[in-house]
């Protein structure tokens, strides 16, 4: 339409007409768009400024207050000053605006009113003055938000969802010792902590720098962001409490390659353990917030350990080794678990041998290195305990056997080729053709090879390990091996450690 007129000389009248037409459109347009602008502005003002969630709650709160007071025939109705309320506690990094909707949280007259107008249940706020604590230190959630859905934060971009009501007691553990918590209504938290200790979770997980390294450390398990864990298989809301619950129900379902396999737990136990996990936040709270009970707990956890040998063994080792006095096959892991307090073992193993085994673990097995998980003193105490295991009747070995086993520089020479033949006949069935371990422990293992003495090997083969599957092979009269045979086997097992083939 426009291109036609462009190359001809326009006539003034047609220009006037066109301009008049366009100008009419402009003027109507301005009126229409101007009116739209004002409508949108009014909508904006209404939503952003007038009909906000917190304002509506406060208006309703004011009405409630009047009716409550009229009913009590108390003093004249108070006017509620409608404004955003907030509690700023720099020490706790809290800016909590929860009281903007929970305006009656500290008003005893509002007890029993519907949420969000009700006062806080219990007497918690008397002991925990709101100005000093805020709300999110206990309840979590997004304290800065003024819209409940975003305070709750189970589906918005905020790392810490509001704790489910039953789990709030996990936060008590931030400042209080477990006993204090138990006495003041936090039984689940205390039960969770007890369960954590009873089940020896620290055997695999470190807490405060103590414990095993098979699983991840748990110091900030309760402070993890939802992105830090995989929510792929979580069926409930994608929050940390939910993840923990479902994970405890079946670890391998939530974390597919998880080796964690705790004995079946009841729903209550799972809840308690989850609550305890949630309290592990690795927060550096100002010291004036911590109670004496908490100090004691921290001191015990981080200070000089008071655990003696038996305690250490049952806490850190017992989960797998049980009493340690017998060797067993573990179906869950498909692994052999040696008798580390077996009567034969404790007689022929040197202190260095056991210490090294504890500190360095057994690569390739579930026995993870404990260096760092226990203090040096604790390791010493534990090793001492293991070595001092009482011997059952008739288990005592001849003194010369024991002393040979404790001789570091004893070098047993034998015919490795013969050893290989004997090994494949008698030993390979349990220890594996290459000594990789099957029903019996792996022999081609660096840590093992480095720390056992030749005398230990000799004694082991010759006299077996009592109360384990390892039989005694020394029986020259009964058609068993003679000393030469055993020497040959020792020489071959040593070769396994180097990974070399036996040479003629």
């Amino acid at each position, binding site marked *: 339409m426009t291109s036609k007129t462009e190359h001809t000389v326009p006539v003034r009248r047609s220009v006037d007409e066109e301009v008049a037409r366009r100008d009419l459109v402009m003027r109507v347009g301005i009126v229409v768009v101007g009116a739209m602008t004002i409508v949108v502005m009014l909508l904006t003002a209404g939503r952003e400024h007038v009909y906000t969630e917190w304002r509506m709650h406060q208006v309703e709160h004011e009405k409630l207050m009047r009716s409550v007071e009229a009913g009590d025939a108390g003093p004249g109705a108070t006017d509620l000053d409608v404004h*955003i309320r907030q509690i700023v506690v*720099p020490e706790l990094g809290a800016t909590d605006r929860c009281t903007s909707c929970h305006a009656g949280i500290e008003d005893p007259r509002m007890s029993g009113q519907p949420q969000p107008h009700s006062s806080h249940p219990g007497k918690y706020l008397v002991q925990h003055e709101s100005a000093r604590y805020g709300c999110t230190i206990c309840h979590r959630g997004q304290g800065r938000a003024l819209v409940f859905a975003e305070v709750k934060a189970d589906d918005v971009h905020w790392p810490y969802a509001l704790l489910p009501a039953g789990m709030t007691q996990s936060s008590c553990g931030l400042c209080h010792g477990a006993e204090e918590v138990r006495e003041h209504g936090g039984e689940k938290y205390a039960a969770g902590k007890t369960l954590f200790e009873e089940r020896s979770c620290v055997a695999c997980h470190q807490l405060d720098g103590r414990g095993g390294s098979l699983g991840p450390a748990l110091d900030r398990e309760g402070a993890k962001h939802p992105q830090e864990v995989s929510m792929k298989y979580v069926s409930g809301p994608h929050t940390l409490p939910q993840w923990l619950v479902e994970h405890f129900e079946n670890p391998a379902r939530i974390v597919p390659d998880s080796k964690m396999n705790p004995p079946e737990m009841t729903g209550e136990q799972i809840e308690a353990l989850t609550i305890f996990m949630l309290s592990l936040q690795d927060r550096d709270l100002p010291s004036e917030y911590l109670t004496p009970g908490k100090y004691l707990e921290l001191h015990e956890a981080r200070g000089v350990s008071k655990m003696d040998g038996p305690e250490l063994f049952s806490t850190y080792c017992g989960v797998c080794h049980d009493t340690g006095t017998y060797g067993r096959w573990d179906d869950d892991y498909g692994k052999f678990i040696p008798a580390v307090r077996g009567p034969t073992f404790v007689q022929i193993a040197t202190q260095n041998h056991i210490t090294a085994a504890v500190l360095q673990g057994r690569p390739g097995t579930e026995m993870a290195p404990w260096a760092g998980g226990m203090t040096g003193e604790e390791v010493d105490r534990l090793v001492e305990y293991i070595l001092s295991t009482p011997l059952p009747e008739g288990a005592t070995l001849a003194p010369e056997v024991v002393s040979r086993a404790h001789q570091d520089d004893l070098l047993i020479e034998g015919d490795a080729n013969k050893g290989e033949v004997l090994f494949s006949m008698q030993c390979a069935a349990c220890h594996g053709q290459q000594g990789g371990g099957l029903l019996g422990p792996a022999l081609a293992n660096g840590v093992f090879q480095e720390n056992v003495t030749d005398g230990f090997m000799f004694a082991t083969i010759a006299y077996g390990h009592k109360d384990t599957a390892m039989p005694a092979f020394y029986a020259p009269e009964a058609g068993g091996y003679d000393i030469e045979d055993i020497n040959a086997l020792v020489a071959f097992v040593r070769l396994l450690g180097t990974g070399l083939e036996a040479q003629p």
Partner: protein
Amino acid sequence: MPKRLEPEPLPRRDFLSLAGLTLTGLAGIGATMGGIRLLKPYVLPERSNRFTIGLPGEFPVGTERILPERNVVVRSTPAGVAVVSLVCTHLGCIVASTDEGFDCPCHGSRFTGEGDVVKGPAPRPLRWLEVWLAPDGKLVVDGGSEVSPGTFFGV
């Protein structure tokens, strides 16, 4: 200027132009008001004005102690405890303690030990703040709540 070169005034604005102009103006006023509303915050990003000063035993009777981080002086007398603000009532400087009372370094106001004005432009005595005992037995001060001078909180 010759008359014929002077252009005629345009016809008065029609209704549409006027309506458009009015609506545009209203929108402008609305936007400006919105911008101005934004300047006055709903909440101030400060911590609560209430603060704990400690157990009553920390303030033996007959002593005065200045808490510099809170800009208050705590006076403990047989009648009880009082907390007086050290913010000059003139223009908000922090007054300094002297033998006779308090001197303001900014404009020379001078106050007695009780906070009464003796010299200078300060329009009123130093503010006495409300004090009470929290459930944990510690003294709490509300920096935003004033009591009449001479009010002591009996412990």
